[in-house]
């Protein structure tokens, strides 16, 4: 090979690759609107994106898997946590997690109420982007979808917060026995008990169904009843109940006080 042929190879490779790349870029542009639901890019979403940038969120978190790996991925966070939870969290993250237990904590971003709602709108828009179904399994922030995988972790007996949702989440992982030993909050991940993802929304449908014989009138009542009287309504499936008796322990009505049960209900209602 001569130097001229070497140069020719360089020129051909570069121009061919660049031409294909630019062609695909143009085609991709015609698809952005459909893949990212551009019609839902409201002013609130765009303002949320600006707040996301201004607070340098990407240098701890990941979004669509891109970022800094120091804090949880937020691609589908609005599908795992409801707006009331996220709002309370963004007002003061230290109410939900503690540095002593988790070794790291999100600094308070000091956002105004309107800014918080814009950020949540932005994250919700992101969660609906068509990204080839990633993540293949839900990435959850804390807790576990598999029983016993949190053995050896510091026991999280009580929340550091007085917020009912935060206290409820902490109880979810510690109430004897811990709810998350049997229930995941990830969609589709049924363990010993059914997943509680979306329980806030699903409860209403259960109450309205003809199979329901309990006394609950609202989703909150239904969740409370399921905790205190697990057999009042039986989720279909031989792995959950037999002889009209739920497999879920029925000690919660006596072992937890009213305030604790209220917290659990408040937390689970946010699982939309």
């Amino acid at each position: 090979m001569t130097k001229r042929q070497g140069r020719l190879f360089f020129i051909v490779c570069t121009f061919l690759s660049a031409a294909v790349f630019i062609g695909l870029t143009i085609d991709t542009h015609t698809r952005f609107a459909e893949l990212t639901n551009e019609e839902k890019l409201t002013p609130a979403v765009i303002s949320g994106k600006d707040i996301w940038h201004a607070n340098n969120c990407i240098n701890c978190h990941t979004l669509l898997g891109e970022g800094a790996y120091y804090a949880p991925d937020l691609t589908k966070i609005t599908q795992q946590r409801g707006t009331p939870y996220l709002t309370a969290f963004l007002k003061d993250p230290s109410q939900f997690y503690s540095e002593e237990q988790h070794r790291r904590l999100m600094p308070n971003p000091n956002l105004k109420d309107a800014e918080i709602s814009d950020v949540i709108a932005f994250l919700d828009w992101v969660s609906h982007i068509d990204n080839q179904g990633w993540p293949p399994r839900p990435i959850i922030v804390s807790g576990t979808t598999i029983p016993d995988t949190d053995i050896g972790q510091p026991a999280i007996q009580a929340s550091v917060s007085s917020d009912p949702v935060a206290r409820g989440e902490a109880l979810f992982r510690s109430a004897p026995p811990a709810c998350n030993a049997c229930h995941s909050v990830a969609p589709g991940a049924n363990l010993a008990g059914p997943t509680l993802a979306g329980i806030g929304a699903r409860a209403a449908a259960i109450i309205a169904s003809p199979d329901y014989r309990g006394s609950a009138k609202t989703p909150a009542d239904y969740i409370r009843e399921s905790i205190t009287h697990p057999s009042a309504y039986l989720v279909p499936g031989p792995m959950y109940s037999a002889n009209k008796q739920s497999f879920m322990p029925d000690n919660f009505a006596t072992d937890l006080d009213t305030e604790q049960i209220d917290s659990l209900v408040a937390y689970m209602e946010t699982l939309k």
Partner: protein
Amino acid sequence: MRYRSQSIAYWYFAVAMCLFGLQLVFGLLSATKYLGPDPLLDFLPFDKTKAIHTNLLIVWVLTGFMGATYYVVPEESRSEIYSVKLAYAQLVTWTLMGVTAIVGYMFGWTAGNKMLEQPFPLKIVIVVVMLMFLYNILMTIKQAGRWTVTEGVLVAGLVLAALLYLPALLEYDNYTVSIFYRWWTIHLWVEGVWEMIQGGLLAYLLIRLSGADREVMEKWLYVIVGLVFLAGILGTAHHYYWVGVPQYWLPIGGFFSALEPLALLGMAMYAYFAMRRSGLSHPNSLAVHWTIGSAVFTVFGAGLLGFAHTWPSVNKWTHGTLVTAMHGHGAFYGAYAMIVMAIITYALPNLTVNRKVEGSSVGYWAFWMQVMGMFGMTLSFGTAGIGQVYLERILGLGYLDTQLKLQVHFLMLLATASVFAVGAGLFIWNFFRTPPKLAADVLVAPQHRIIPGMDDGGLVNQKQ
């Protein structure tokens, strides 16, 4: 040093070394935050130290590239730099921009776009500095009326690097579109034109250090840069996985990313065989270490560790985990930090007084501690990343709970990073140990006279 204006390079290298030292401070600070709790949470949380760490890297490596160009171009074009004053004005502006950016980040002045955090006014300063630099270099070449392929590749790489920064100036309402164009700058820099710059510097160093035939080296330089572009341009697709773009980027990313290690392996073989075949041994064997080391570490860090997670069915699970940090550290260090330290090590005996060409034992300690430390760091990130993928992505353990289980890997990271930092500290100390030559000390060879000898490395074969 055959041209007075080559001494400009010393000051660029000096600034690069200071910023390199600072980068390590922020890197170590970030590493300790993995272990937590963080006493600096309210003043300097992870997001700030991490942004400063990566930005300093980009700035010091670019400073090194510019210094290297001021060193290489006079020799290749056989002419003094067009304007020495402009070169110093450029350095001052650039340094001020860098310092402003760092202080700004500390107080929350950021554009918040990963790697492109520079606020808009600073981005404009960067563009202006690049224009000053390119004007000076291109005028030098024009004035000399002579250029070589080696410097052509180096300068073309820098021109393209400046051009590819332009998409970073635009903002998009659609987050996916903004991701799409972020990688036009970052990926096409790192796996495209910066490798072109690395190739140009590598060719320059190999010709000087091994006395290899220039015609042969430049022929293969074309082939290697061609391969880098063939794999690298469409390899951008591996940044388009799972971010809201069409499906076809997945197979394209997989295929062309698989070609990338081959292009880099080509570069390493290029360096290795040049040294083997030449039969000459240059007295500056420390520079030989850095040169070959850069080519080899690039295959490992950028090539193999990159390919470890760019196949789509693997990346589906590893995307957004510490596996990426493993590749990032290995790639940037091998390809860019090491090539800048290679050219510094090569040039330093000429740029400073009382320095032995062969280098000193401190220099070797600096080399080996850095290489071993960085190897350990990539292993720490890699094992932490694999643990994270298994626990968090496959078993479904929560993110925070998983991170608690990875503490031992973070301890290993801190230990190996400390070894690296000592090596880097020795390199920086060794750099500043002897004073620079003043312009008056420089013995300038008469221009347009070819002196046969090793440092001419093949120039004699060059057609006039």
